[in-house]
């Protein structure tokens, strides 16, 4: 079973949070500091789940989401964000365009990260 999780976030503290929360419980966490790198990693080897930050330098979260959908359409993506109005319209448009994603509100605790991961990978599929 694929237990590889991809975290795309420009903030190392956030990347660390996912590494610390998931590596203990048997997941392999890959990290990417920007959207381009994340898309490249996903294209090379599709992960089981992607946590994606919305606000990033260079390619932003929504654009990254579209690219990820192209390279690995079946991989579930969770947008990890503090609700910011700037991106809500684009997200809503992305949803209308058929992109599927979940939203998790920053900041996430270790438990929340694990809960989301478990429910996506092992529990009944929410999305």
């Amino acid at each position, binding site marked *: 079973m694929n237990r590889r999780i991809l975290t795309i976030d420009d903030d190392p503290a956030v990347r660390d949070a996912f590494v*610390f929360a998931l590596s203990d419980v048997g997941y392999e966490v890959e990290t990417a500091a920007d959207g381009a790198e994340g898309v490249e990693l996903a294209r090379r080897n599709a992960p089981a789940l992607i946590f994606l930050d919305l606000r990033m330098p260079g390619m932003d979260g929504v654009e990254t989401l579209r690219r990820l959908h192209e390279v690995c359409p079946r991989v579930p993506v969770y947008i990890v964000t503090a609700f910011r109005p700037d991106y809500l319209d684009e997200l809503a448009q992305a949803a209308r365009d058929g992109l599927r994603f979940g*939203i998790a509100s*920053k900041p996430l605790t270790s438990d929340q990260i694990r809960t989301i991961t478990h429910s996506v990978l092992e529990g009944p599929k929410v999305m």
Partner: protein
Amino acid sequence: MPMGKHGKYHPPMPSADAAPRVQRDRCARPWRVQATAERLLAFGTWMWAPGSGCMEWSDGLYVLLGYRPGTVAADYQIFVTAFHPEDRPRLLVQLEACLDSGAPVSFSGRLSHAGQAQRVRVAAEASRPPGKHLRCLQGAVQRAGLPEDVIAAATDAVFAFDGDTRLSLWNPAAGRILRRPASQVLGRRVAEVFPSLARNRAGRCCQRVLAGQSCYARGVRVVDRAAGLNGYFDMDFAPLHGPSGEVTGGIGMVREVTEQRRAQARLRLRVRQSCSLLEHGPDIVMRFDRRLRCVYANRTLFPSGHAAGENTPNALHADPTRSLWYRNMRRVLATGEPASVELFVPGPAGTRVFDTRMVAEPGPYGRVRSVLAVARDITEQKQAEEALRQANRRLEAAMDELRARQRQDVEEEKLTALGTLAAGIAHELNNPMMGVMNYVDYARRNLGAPDTVRDVLTRAARELERIRDLLKNMLAFARPIDEPSGELSLHNVIGAALDLMMQEFQARQIEVKLDLPYGLPAVRAKEGHLQQVFVNLLMNARDALANAPRKEVSIRAVQEGTLIRVDVTDSGTGIPAAIRDRIFDPFFTTKRPGKGTGLGLSISRAIMLELGGDLVYQDRPGRGTTLSVSIPAIPSNAGESP
């Protein structure tokens, strides 16, 4: 010899060579003729009473002799010594003869005075003064002949004529005033030499003079364009008598009064103009005598004419003002101080307001003789003032309202700024928060240390969660400022708000019922604003359902006329009656510290009011809480709903 009323002797009018004649009757002729004749023809009168011990003489003789009567030796000798030494014996003989016989005598001799000799005639008679037994001697001293030098120097025209009105004397002033030199007129008749217009008057005066009467004419118009004469004359004529009292001719005087007449005419014109100003001015002008009778009123009050003598004009005399009117009028009369009073006079066209000033007018002896009242109709002015005052009040009210609204706007701006700031800070804090939370969690899980350290880390994790919740609430107030308004579908807006909240609702097992009819009209709003309203309402519903047994949120939209109403109802316990009135107040919250700012409903309501809608609480006892959003719909022909 008679004396005048005031002890002044009025001498006879002598002809050129007639002896002085004692005139027993006082002539009733104009004073100016008498005075001039006296000045020209006589020095004065004298009287000596042997028993009285003094001699009296008139002012003219005083000037001539240089002695004041009563200050010198009481003898007629002093009178005699005024004459030339050669003439004195004859004068003494004559005076004594008169005293003896009582018959009038006449003496001609030379007066010596100040080194000059003048030929004079002395007339004397003896008489018994009233109440006296002794005979006294009295008489007059007269110049011998006409005093040519005086006449020549006179500024008035002086001329003399004989019984045929032919001129025998014509002084230089006459030549100047009547524009005829003496050489042209002497020997001709008076009527021939006078300029036209004055000619007939002069002729008639001459005839009367020759009949023994004096006469005069005032302001006679004279025009002689050839001679450059155009003016007015005052003329005086008096007869001259011969030795036996018969009229031998006359003397006349002419004075040009053109300048005076013109000055008088100008003055009259000025007065008339002033009166005209007074008569036709805007103010009512009245004069009242001491008994408060109206003795003058101008045409402003009585356009048809004058009403002098009437009582106080009724116009200003109406009952409500009567006492005020009389009280002030009497005070002005008593004190002489001016008064000013506003009279409100009712009339057919409504009450008129008169600003009335009363001024005392003193008579010749300083006492207040009359009161001048000037009344100005200031009704329109008063009305304008009142209108201005009202406009001012309205303006001030509007200003107050504007200020209040400005304060409100400023408050709202502050809240908006606060929300933006809070959102920015919260967002920036999210990433480090997430890092710290997980670092602490990791440390707690992998710590082999004693329980106390683990416990401390657990507490730290709990406190971090509090911070996290706070940040989430702060983020709810992010409110874009510059977003433009657009036509929005409520389906989309509510759907987006639900999308954002769905995760939370699912985590809390809150059921959402959505009842949005197809074909709702579009609305005009800023999308972020409207979405924030619904997010706020959904967050409130979520919090209200925290401990509720049945967790359900229903969203229902209906169109009510031009408004669309959206009810957001939760199945919670409802809002206690005590705080219902305060839920829209800023910073009012029922949540624990850190769980809510108390701004959500306040800001939401402000947003809805700004959109022309409203946000109200609907009381549904026992059926949870319903907050109703109403918003104007865009008319269906103006915009289409999806």
